[in-house]
């Protein structure tokens, strides 16, 4: 895709390959003494969309953020267990969290473009990573990949803040993919958008899934059903306020004949 693309950061993590992009092994995440999620054993399939569903407060976002060490930005947070990215533990002492976050990008619930031009927003990550290729081409390709190019090509030097909410979110996705990640984590990426903008984001996810591994957190079960290939159901453990994955399966199975009664009750709206 980018013939003149140069490696931005020396590879300290093996190149992506294999059936699973991420594998959590016995993963727990703590905020101080509070264990937010525990005993997570989960394999995320490469170039597929995996959705985390479950009631509010069950640790979906915490688990998602553990996949690129984003929780470390919270001073009291720490993780136990392992998160293997193509076989290597991203929590190993010699792994640079900045490199982890470049390989495993993130898109948040609320679009958060910088108060800069559209062009600068997309070029920003590549610029600070010392990208030496054709920046204009990188910006265009990233905007094309997020189906935004035709809408913004004549106003690249205008402020990103002038875009609509849906466009801003697609811009944030363009910004994320401009640094050539392998995995994109999306935390409720469409929950602040209207239905049409939501459908555009969902369509974009399907497009991106051919090239990237996507993991999404969503409260919108129909969204999980529409866009994801695999669904992981999370819940709080019975006696504690700790989140666990209780069932993982193909989205088709989870939404037509889940095995766990708790999943059945949740997806059919009987609790939550």
């Amino acid at each position, binding site marked *: 895709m980018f013939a003149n693309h140069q490696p931005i950061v020396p590879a300290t993590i093996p190149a992506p390959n294999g059936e699973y992009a991420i594998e959590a092994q016995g993963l727990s995440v703590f905020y101080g003494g509070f264990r937010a999620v525990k005993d997570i054993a989960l394999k995320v399939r490469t170039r597929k969309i995996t959705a985390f569903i479950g009631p509010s407060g069950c640790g979906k976002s915490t688990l998602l953020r553990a996949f690129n060490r984003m929780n470390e930005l919270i001073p009291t947070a720490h993780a136990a267990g392992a998160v293997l990215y193509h076989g290597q533990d991203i929590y190993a002492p010699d792994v640079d969290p900045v490199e982890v976050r470049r390989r495993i990008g993130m898109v948040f619930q609320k679009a958060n473009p910088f108060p800069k031009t559209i062009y600068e927003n997309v070029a920003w990550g590549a610029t600070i990573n010392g990208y030496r290729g054709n920046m204009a081409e990188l910006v265009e390709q990233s905007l094309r990949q997020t189906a935004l190019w035709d809408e913004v090509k004549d106003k690249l030097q205008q402020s990103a803040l002038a875009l609509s909410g849906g466009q801003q979110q697609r811009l944030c996705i363009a910004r994320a993919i401009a640094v050539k990640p392998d995995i994109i984590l999306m935390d409720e990426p469409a929950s602040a958008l209207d239905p049409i903008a939501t459908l555009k984001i969902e369509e974009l996810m399907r497009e991106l899934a051919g090239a990237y591994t996507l993991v999404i957190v969503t409260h919108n*079960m*129909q969204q999980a*059903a529409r866009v994801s290939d695999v669904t992981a159901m999370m819940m709080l453990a019975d006696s504690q306020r700790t989140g666990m994955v209780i069932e993982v399966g193909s989205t088709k199975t989870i*939404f*037509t*004949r*889940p095995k766990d009664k708790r*999943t*059945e*009750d949740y*997806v*059919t*709206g*009987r*609790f*939550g």
Partner: protein
Amino acid sequence: MTPGIRAHFEKQLTQLNEDVLELGSRARRAVADGLRALMEGDADLAREVIAADVTINRLRYDIEFECYTLLATEQPVASDMRAIVAALTIVNDLERIADHGKKIARIYLRMLEDLRPIPLGEVPVLSELVLAMLERALRAFATRDVAEAEAVCRADDQADAQYKCVFNAIVNQMVEAPQRISAGTHLIQVAHELERVGDRATNVAERVIYTVTGELIELNI
């Protein structure tokens, strides 16, 4: 579980089940009355069965529309989705069962023109078998009873065997008394309609199994 979180939807699902059972009850009556008309020589009853089919067809479309509305407005998944899509196929089979009853009534009215009637032989035995299958299928639907549904599917082999037995007996009678060929042909048609009722009861039972387990299986082989 939060109690009553989808109370309105659950009421609608309960209503759907009741409507399906109402259709099932009417379909069963159509077959039973069609046969009673034949066995008791009651032409008025046969005409009533034929006339009642309009209402049955209407009820089937009402239920179908009810299902479409639930699919469009409630976005059901998992067991809810299975219950609704199963209801959609079950009402199709039930409406066709009623059609078989109507056809039996019509055949009987045509048989009145036969100058040389033919004894019913074991047709009542076949009718008892398939009506029992239909009742069990409806009971399995009402109680979501997989074992009962599987029993319906097994009973279909017995019904098929009985149909062959009835068929052979009628053919033998026609061979022995060619003047009864017209009446015999009509009676074979009646037996065939009954055999189809058994097949459709099996279809209903298969969809009950799907509703409960999510497994789509063909038991009527």
